């Protein structure tokens, strides 16, 4: 397999920029690692890592200069492909009625840098929602088109990760143009000085074409083996596990279970879990007019099944109890999603656990139901 050294990575970024791609990737911002515009590898969180637990996140310095030495942060790539707030169209009064003016959508040519395996799965899941349905969405397919993905095989698992249970990682298997495994070898293992390099796997012709522009060498057997060890180690470090055996029927059978009442005493219905989740796709629309009343707009915004409005029909909210809303969310993620889209709606990224202010843990909730099922 090809290998790139630390400095060649900037040349890879340049090769993408020359092709007109806009680079986005992890960067340190306000104490969290988030996805944003990148100019060069210096914008990456060089030498940083994160610590994650239920309801807790913090970044800290690493002992080395790793570029991708952390797990996933509070933002996910859906922010780019399925934008949080977006105008769908405008309307202008005209003659006897009005005219609708659609949004002009140009492919933004995103290059996502550092997409993790669970996130590749999350993108594939949102593709099913927004592209493969009866009518493709007006915006998502355009944002998605031309997307170039440089994935990264995780070098360490976060405290709330459980991709191994969900069969979504830590090694990327599909959905990327190039995938990197970052290898850091301290001097006592390497010959001579410290070594820092990336073993590359090519996923598409486009990926191969870009890589040709960047000086690289062929990995030795030892280097390939070192990359293998990186993912094996990560796979063995999962912070969480979730037993998915017959999970759909488990939750279908337990629509009534005392655990839903119990979790409802803790859940604040703050909707954080749905906002950070890379697969949650719910939205609402808002209609506005300007002061003259001649011009109207329709906007789409991320929404959450944790709000009261979400299931409102005249006369009342269908899911008014906290219990029913938590149950809707978790049952959707892990069970009804399978009937709807032929895949789980959870990729085991752990974000909902880390960013829940009271540390509610989806893996723990499933365990509790499984263990106390009557």
């Amino acid at each position, binding site marked *: 397999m090809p290998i790139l050294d630390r400095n060649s990575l900037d040349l890879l970024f340049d090769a993408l920029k020359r092709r007109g791609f806009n680079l986005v990737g992890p960067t340190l911002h306000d104490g969290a690692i988030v996805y944003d515009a990148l100019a060069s590898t210096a914008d990456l969180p060089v030498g940083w890592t994160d610590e994650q637990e239920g309801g807790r996140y913090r970044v800290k310095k690493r002992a080395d200069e790793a570029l991708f030495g952390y797990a996933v942060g509070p933002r996910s790539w859906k922010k780019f492909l399925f934008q949080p707030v977006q105008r*769908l*169209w405008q*309307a202008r*009064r005209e003659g*006897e*009625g*009005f*005219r*609708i003016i*659609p949004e002009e959508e140009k492919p933004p040519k995103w290059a996502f840098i550092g997409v993790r395996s669970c996130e590749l799965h999350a993108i594939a899941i949102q593709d099913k*929602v*927004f592209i493969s*349905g*009866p*009518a*493709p*969405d*007006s915006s998502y397919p355009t944002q998605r088109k031309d997307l170039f993905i440089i994935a990264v095989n995780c070098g360490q698992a976060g405290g709330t990760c459980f991709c191994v249970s969900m069969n979504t990682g830590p090694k990327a298997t599909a959905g990327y143009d190039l995938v990197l495994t970052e290898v850091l070898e301290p001097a006592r293992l390497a010959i001579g000085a410290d070594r820092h390099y990336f073993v590359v796997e090519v996923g598409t012709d486009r990926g191969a074409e870009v890589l040709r522009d960047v000086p690289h060498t062929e990995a030795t057997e030892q280097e390939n083996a070192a990359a293998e060890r990186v993912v094996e180690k990560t796979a063995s470090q999962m912070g969480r596990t979730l037993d998915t055996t017959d999970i759909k029927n488990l939750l*279908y059978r337990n*629509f009534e279970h005392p655990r839903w009442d119990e979790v409802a005493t803790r859940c604040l219905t703050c909707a954080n879990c749905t906002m950070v989740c890379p697969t949650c*796709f*719910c*939205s*609402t*629309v808002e*209609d*506005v*007019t300007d002061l003259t*009343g001649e011009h*109207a707009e*329709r906007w789409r915004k991320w*929404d959450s*099944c944790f709000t009261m409005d*979400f*299931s*409102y*029909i*005249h*006369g009342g909210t*269908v*899911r*008014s*109890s906290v*219990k*029913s809303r938590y149950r*809707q969310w978790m049952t*959707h993620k892990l*069970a*009804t999603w399978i*009937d*709807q889209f032929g895949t789980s709606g959870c990729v085991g990224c752990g974000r909902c656990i880390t960013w829940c202010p009271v540390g509610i843990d989806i893996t723990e909730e499933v365990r509790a139901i499984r263990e106390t099922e009557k």
Partner: protein
Amino acid sequence: MNPWIPYPAEVIEKRREALRVHTLRLRIRDEAIRRAYRFRPGQFNMIYVFGTGEVPISIVSDPDESGFLDHTIRVVGKMTAALVGLKEGDTVGLRGPYGSWWPLEEARGMDVVIVTGGLGCAPVVSVINYVAHRRDRYGRLKIFHGVKTPKDLLYRARFRAWQKHPDTEVYLTVDHPDREWKYKVGVVTNLFRQVRIDARKSAVMMCGPEGMMKSAVRDLRAQGVPADRIYLSLERNMKCAIGFCGHCQYGPRFICKDGPVLRFDQIQEWFGKDEL
């Protein structure tokens, strides 16, 4: 094709049906779109009022009458009030048709049993009209309608007119009668004990409050009506009607694209669950 774009439609007629209930007859302004537009009874449109919002409304006109689309709207809030406040000549936005339809092909040769309740139920009006205009294709048409009190019976005149149709039976009932009430008393499902339904050759189509539908299904099943010959039209909040917004979920189903008309045996394990 951008699925979010409504097409302008003109209000060509507005008819009062009952207190706070009006029928709007809409005509899509663009001729090519108007000609290509096809729907089946049970389907709905998303109707947009300039700058105000967009809501799902069933189509109640006959699918073979081309050139216009009727929508009967009951005022319950901001959007329905805005719709009913429109005048002839005004323009709305229209997207559709969406969703599944009543099994009017499957029901050929059978008795058609309609069960409705609550404050009127637009989706079944389309079936009644459809059957009334194609009397030879179906057996008897039996309409069961239950309301809480006589003043909730919004379409008295309509029911009276239907009653006069050939091979048509109309059964009305209230939970709490007043002195003038001359029909039956008790919940709608009481009627099934008094009126014979031929379980072997009836197709049931119902729409109304979920509690009412739950007991109706139970009683019809007890009379031997097979689960796959009972169809229900369900309602959930809808923001898109095209499977994106997630609001209309009903267990594994999306009411906007898998429904609103669903066959009972396909939702049996979910139907009647609280806060689903």
